[in-house]
């Protein structure tokens, strides 16, 4: 991190800190969501009905174009060469053999690459999403083992790959830190997340722990994880004059376009980035070196370029989740109520980024405890910049916290569900805020009944079938509600004879989770139109505003922007309606949308259809654009989703093999907008959690910082046979303070799962495994 970037992050942290002091004191009515979204009261429309993905047919027939399927005339293909040392300098690159290989158009290295600015690092401005403050192809420096250092363009992918392998690169290695022990020995720093310290201290946690009647105090470790979306990262791009056309796989379309403009010194409107379909992102589909390299090479060669990373290329170029070492200590009374809760530990980052895996975030609001100590410290290593990966923080933090709670339940002889409920807080334990919507006890009770939790053996190892020991475990999952600033929506009504169609455009991203479908559902309800008459535009930097498919906040961000734009639309229509309308004289806040037109809220007989208003005004269309309200609600209320997770495992007594035989997720995530796509989201998150529990691990060789399993053959994720039937239920209780009463649900699914599995393994075997993944050798 440069000093300037650090200062920018710190400044943002100060602004956030100030807001967090003021916003809680404001009256509810001043805060977005203070007055419930009228759609919450609408019970009989499309919201809550299972709607199939509107793009489903396109996808299963192969007609949906992904980033590596766009074409340009005279397009060439890129292949990258990666460094094999962790730190040092490039002494020489012999490009002669590569340049004379068949089909080669260009070999680009730091020596001939165009001059480019360093991408602004994530968090230094609203649009900044660079993974690290490192220049790309601008000097001879090596910063991680696997860093892209040369790019070959050729007429075919095979020619480019072959030529890249012919490059002869020599290095001058310099001392590097690729060993965790060495990194720790250099000293730890306080971790910052979004500019604020990852530290909370209330009361005297260590003292209360020492004096507690019951205590657990354990260490838990989670390994590095790599991103493995089914679609490897790719972009197809071309320069048209000084304008860059970029078809990318992006979960942050506007920000990515702006970052590319910053790198190449272009105006915002000189980069047009589209990303209509994305084959999974999970936090990884942002700006990495490959798009910058491809655009630079394209400019140098004067040819459009497609860059499609190999699976190994994704491991070398795209960061993953960093390792953690966590301590969780709980001091409790005999009745189970907590006296002290300590959740501390470390994660690793690089010298050039600032994204400590924030594993205490979920603990901040989890349980009532009068004495709390939470802290994330960091060590720095020479490695590829780590990044966001589905529920950064909560995914691994809940493993430690929820394992420790299970350990305490065993010590106390209490049912672990009951222990959790006994420590349910009345207000947020760290912020002191009121909860906006928290029905976790209902989620626990409903889930326990449905799962048959009362059949759980009270004593570990009590239930066997042949070679298999069978056990049950549970855990709480959690993820916050966020809504980021910058979202805008454009609503256009188009008269089509006697009907009116609507186009709703948001600069959002669709990574496969069903956003475009859900947006159409909500827009149809908001505008009072059939869903068939709604067209949703997204995934295009030409659309106003900036919406990130991250932090599980996109649904809320879109919802907030569409609410604002709809208000603007009503005002515009009333103006067009004029004095001859039944609505004449009404103000925008007295009127809403209903059945193809506007109606007075408390007297729906005063109404006029959109078509009638437009016809009388001799207009074919009306279009409005509006930004969503300032997202202050999650500083005014404590806003979180929760899950109660139940797992049954079978552990083989001979081999230590673990098979998850049943899983239930009982979720409290506000109102579910589309049960069909929501179920997939929850299940997908749980499956990813099963992988985290049992098999996922990046093999980072500490001798040289090289990732040794950069392939789906050796980096294990669950296959079909590893995944049991996964039951999913939810409370469906709307959060009165969010758009549509909904919470985003992209990330909560993974949280808590690893602990539920580990706790079930304990119940089956009596063995407590505190290091992930729980491979069979740990159970022998």
């Amino acid at each position, binding site marked *: 991190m440069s000093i300037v970037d650090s200062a920018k992050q710190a400044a943002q942290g100060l602004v956030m800190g100030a807001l967090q002091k003021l916003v809680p004191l404001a009256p509810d009515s001043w805060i977005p969501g203070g007055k419930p979204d009228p759609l919450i009261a609408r019970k009989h429309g499309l919201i809550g009905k299972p709607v199939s993905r509107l793009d489903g047919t396109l996808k299963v027939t192969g007609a949906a174009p992904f980033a590596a399927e766009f074409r340009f005339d005279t397009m060439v293909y890129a292949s990258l060469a990666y460094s094999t040392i962790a730190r040092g300098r490039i002494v020489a690159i012999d490009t002669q053999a590569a340049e004379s290989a068949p089909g080669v158009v260009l070999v680009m290295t730091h020596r001939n690459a165009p001059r480019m600015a360093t991408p602004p690092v994530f968090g230094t401005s609203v649009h900044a999403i660079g993974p690290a403050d490192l220049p790309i192809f601008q000097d001879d420096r090596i910063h991680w083992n696997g860093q892209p250092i040369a790019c070959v363009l050729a007429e075919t992918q095979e020619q480019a790959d072959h030529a890249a392998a012919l490059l002869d690169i020599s290095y001058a290695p310099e001392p590097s830190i690729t060993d965790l022990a060495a990194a720790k020995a250099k000293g730890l720093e306080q971790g910052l997340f979004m500019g604020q310290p990852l530290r909370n201290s209330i009361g005297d946690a260590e003292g209360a722990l020492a004096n507690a009647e019951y205590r657990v105090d354990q260490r838990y470790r989670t390994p590095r994880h790599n991103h493995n979306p089914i679609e490897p990262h790719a972009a197809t791009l071309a320069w048209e004059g000084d304008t860059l056309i970029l078809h990318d796989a992006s979960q942050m379309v506007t920000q990515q376009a702006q970052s590319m403009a910053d790198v190449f010194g272009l105006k915002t409107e000189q980069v047009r980035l589209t990303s209509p379909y994305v084959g999974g992102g999970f936090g990884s589909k942002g700006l990495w070196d490959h798009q910058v390299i491809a655009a630079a090479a394209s400019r140098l060669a004067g040819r459009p370029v497609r860059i499609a990373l190999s699976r190994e290329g994704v491991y070398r170029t795209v960061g993953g989740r960093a390792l953690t070492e966590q301590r969780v200590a709980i001091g409790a009374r005999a009745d189970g109520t907590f006296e002290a809760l300590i959740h501390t530990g470390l994660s690793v980052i690089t010298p050039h980024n600032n994204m400590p895996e924030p594993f205490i975030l979920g603990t901040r609001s989890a349980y009532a405890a009068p004495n709390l100590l939470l802290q994330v410290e960091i060590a720095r290593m020479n490695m590829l910049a780590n990044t966001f990966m589905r529920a950064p923080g909560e995914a691994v933090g809940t493993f430690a916290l929820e394992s420790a709670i299970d350990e305490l339940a065993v010590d106390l002889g209490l049912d672990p569900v009951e222990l959790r409920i006994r420590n349910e807080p009345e207000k947020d334990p760290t912020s002191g805020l009121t909860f906006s919507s928290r029905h976790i006890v209902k989620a626990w009770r409903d889930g326990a009944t449905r799962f048959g939790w009362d059949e759980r053996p009270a004593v570990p190892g009590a239930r066997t079938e042949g070679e298999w020991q069978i056990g049950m475990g549970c855990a709480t999952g959690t993820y916050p509600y966020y809504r980021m600033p910058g979202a805008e929506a454009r609503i256009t009504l188009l008269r089509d004879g006697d009907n009116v169609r609507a186009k709703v455009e948001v600069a959002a991203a669709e990574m496969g989770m069903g956003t475009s479908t859900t947006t159409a559902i909500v827009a149809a309800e908001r505008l009072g139109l059939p869903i068939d008459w709604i067209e949703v535009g997204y995934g295009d930097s030409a659309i106003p505003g900036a919406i990130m498919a991250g932090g599980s906040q996109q649904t809320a961000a879109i919802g907030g922007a569409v609410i604002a734009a709809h208000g603007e639309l009503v005002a515009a229509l009333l103006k067009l309606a004029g004095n001859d309308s039944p609505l004449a004289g009404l103000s925008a806040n007295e009127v809403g949308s209903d059945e193809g037109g506007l109606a007075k809220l408390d007297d729906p007989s005063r109404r006029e259809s959109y078509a009638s208003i437009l016809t009388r005004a001799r207009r074919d269309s009306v279009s409005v654009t509006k930004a969503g309200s300032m997202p202050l609600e999650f500083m005014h209320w404590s806003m979180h989703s929760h899950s109660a997770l139940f797992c049954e495992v079978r552990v083989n007594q001979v081999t230590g093999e673990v098979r998850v035989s049943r899983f239930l997720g009982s979720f409290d995530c506000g109102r579910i907008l589309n049960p069909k796509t929501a179920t997939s989201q929850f299940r997908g998150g749980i499956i990813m959690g099963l992988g985290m529990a049992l098999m996922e691990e990046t093999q980072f060789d500490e001798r040289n910082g090289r990732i040794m399993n950069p392939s789906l053959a050796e980096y294990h994720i669950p296959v079909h046979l590893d995944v049991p039937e996964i039951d999913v239920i939810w409370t469906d209780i709307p959060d009165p303070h969010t758009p549509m009463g909904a919470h985003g649900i992209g990330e909560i699914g993974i949280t808590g799962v690893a602990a539920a599995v580990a706790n079930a393994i304990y119940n089956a075997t009596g063995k407590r495994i505190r290091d992930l993944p729980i491979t*069979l050798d740990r159970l022998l």
Partner: protein
Amino acid sequence: MTPFDYARPTDLAEALRMGAAAGAAYLGGGTNIVDLMRERLAQPSALVDVSTLPATIAETDGGGLMIGAAVRNTALAEHPVVRSRYPVLARAILAGASAQIRNMATVGGNVLQRTRCTYFYDAEGSSCNKRAPGQGCDAVGGFNRIHAVLGTSDACVATHPSDMCVALAALDAIVHIDGPLGQRTMPFGDLHRLPGDQPDRDTVLAPGDLIVAIELPPLRFGASSTYRKVRDRASYAFALISVAAAVEMDGDRIGDVRIAFGGVAPKPWRALTAEAALRGGPATAQAFRDAAAAEFADARVLRDNSFKPVLASRTLAAVLGTLTTGEAA
């Protein structure tokens, strides 16, 4: 991938002629060699496609089977005689890879697949004596959870990854070879080499040699055989350890027994020491564990794979328990 020529011979003689050319390699289903070529671990100047040569499974006079090398793995696993007389082979094949890969992979190609050592696969960034003799071995001091504990050398600790071959080792299969040296046969156990100081040579085959068939001799107690594979997920992973075994009881004693291990050695590991310890003895869990202990007495474990002798012992005991009593030991 380095550019190469592709040729599809119409008969065996033409295949052998093409295969004898310098730099040529035979292509079966391509499920391993194409990966190796993509990683530049194999850079043949020409691929001689023998996957379309006639491939049959025929019963031999003595009651065995002659399996053409181009027979697909799926076809072999599904063959009724294999399923009834050599269930260990059918189970081993079905424990490997995925349905799609088994549909492509040939018997000859499966036998000649190369190790999954990740340092072997990392041509750019790691040292490997198997890939580049004399370069050194990064696996010994690195990630070696999947590596061998028997038959290793200071130069190489890689395992042979095949499941099918473990069954073939237990079944005393015979390899039929043709090539520049003429037709010959050899016991399956002699085909793969231990690394010694030449870990780059996986087998004793000479350049241009082609495996044309695998013969299964009759085995009286072949029907009483099975294969058990232990791995890091339920499917689609290489064995941490696997056991192929066949047992014939003589009263309450073990009359005869065949045992081979996968995932523990640079070659499919026929457990002759364990077999000798068991033959004529009681079929007890203690005897099974003692036999495994004898087999693994010389095991050399590494940082991440010290669990393998224990896991092998437990798995062998369970397999033999099932075969001798119908119940797990």
